[in-house]
């Protein structure tokens, strides 16, 4: 941080006099800010302990779990996570790749689980022939899982644990 201030100094001295006068105020404010910053401890963020003016080393891209095995849901209403890769699966106005296996009329051939009956309901609770437009974009709720270290500790408690603790 002090190097940064020095750098400012040199650059400012090279400038013409009116600019120098004008920038003295700026310089004092900059050094003041840096001093108070230096006095504080670093705040631990997801970014890690790297200065803002430095590019941190990016972590390796994690692999998508592709085991095709169902995972336990954390709570009964949880949208199931996707147990396979979905790279380049289009879900747009023209095509929905997910539904080419998970649709009602595709499940027999694909042996993929059919989307649940709630997906056919509109907001008034009526059942439609096709999945409801509000449920069209699968990735709003259903996501793949990565084989990566969690960034923060997960303190989620399964409902059975809570019931067990209360007993």
């Amino acid at each position, binding site marked *: 941080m002090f190097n940064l201030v020095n750098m400012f100094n040199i650059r400012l001295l090279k400038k013409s006099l009116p600019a120098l006068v004008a920038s003295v105020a700026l310089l004092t404010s900059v050094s003041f800010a840096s001093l108070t910053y230096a006095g504080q401890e670093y705040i631990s963020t997801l970014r890690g302990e790297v200065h803002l003016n430095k590019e941190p080393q990016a972590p390796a891209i994690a692999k998508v779990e592709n085991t095709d095995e169902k995972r336990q849901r954390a709570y009964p209403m949880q949208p199931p996570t996707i147990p396979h*890769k979905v790279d380049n699966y289009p879900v747009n106005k023209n*095509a929905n790749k997910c539904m080419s296996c998970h649709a009602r009329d595709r499940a027999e051939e694909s042996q993929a689980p059919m989307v649940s009956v709630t997906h056919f309901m509109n907001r008034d609770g009526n059942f439609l022939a096709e999945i409801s437009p509000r449920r069209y974009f699968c990735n709003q709720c259903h996501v793949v899982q990565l084989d990566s270290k969690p960034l923060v500790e997960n303190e989620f408690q399964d409902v059975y644990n809570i019931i067990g603790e209360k007993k």
Partner: protein
Amino acid sequence: MSTIKKYLKVLKRPSVHYSLGFLTLGGFIAGIIFWGAFNTALEVTNTEEFCTGCHEMRDNVFEELKTTIHYTNRSGVRATCSDCHVPHNWTDKIARKMQASKEVWAKIFGTIDTREKFLEHRRQLAGNEWRRLKANDSLECRNCHNFEFMDLTRQSKRAMDQHSTALASGEKTCIDCHKGIAHHLPDMKGVEGW
């Protein structure tokens, strides 16, 4: 008319000045040069530079290809336009190149010279390729992806299940399931399996 007759007469007459050896050997060498030139020109029309020389391909389908695994991947093997869209076998290749004369026509008359026109024709254009690949049992896929060489145990369970049943029995071919792997899809309404 008379000039054609004159030239025909010259062709019919035996050579006066050149020996038979010169003519056969000369013809042979000229044949090699002509064939080489023809083949080179044909191969030039199979290059990525040639295909992306027109904005119709460069701004639409080529841009889409760039995001897919057939363009860039961990092992650095690229399947470019002609690898999938031109048969490798010579007779099929010539047949396809003759068909392409219609594409030259479309280029001249600007059938898909704007993005809107291209999108309008997309379903038809995609349909042409699906039909071709369905008819030749996905030959262009199989030029690289040989079923005999596939290690099913290294595939995901889902892929293994499909490949060991539907593909192995010949009931399905690659393009039946793998539509839109190199380009964006058109409106898939009414397409089997969608």
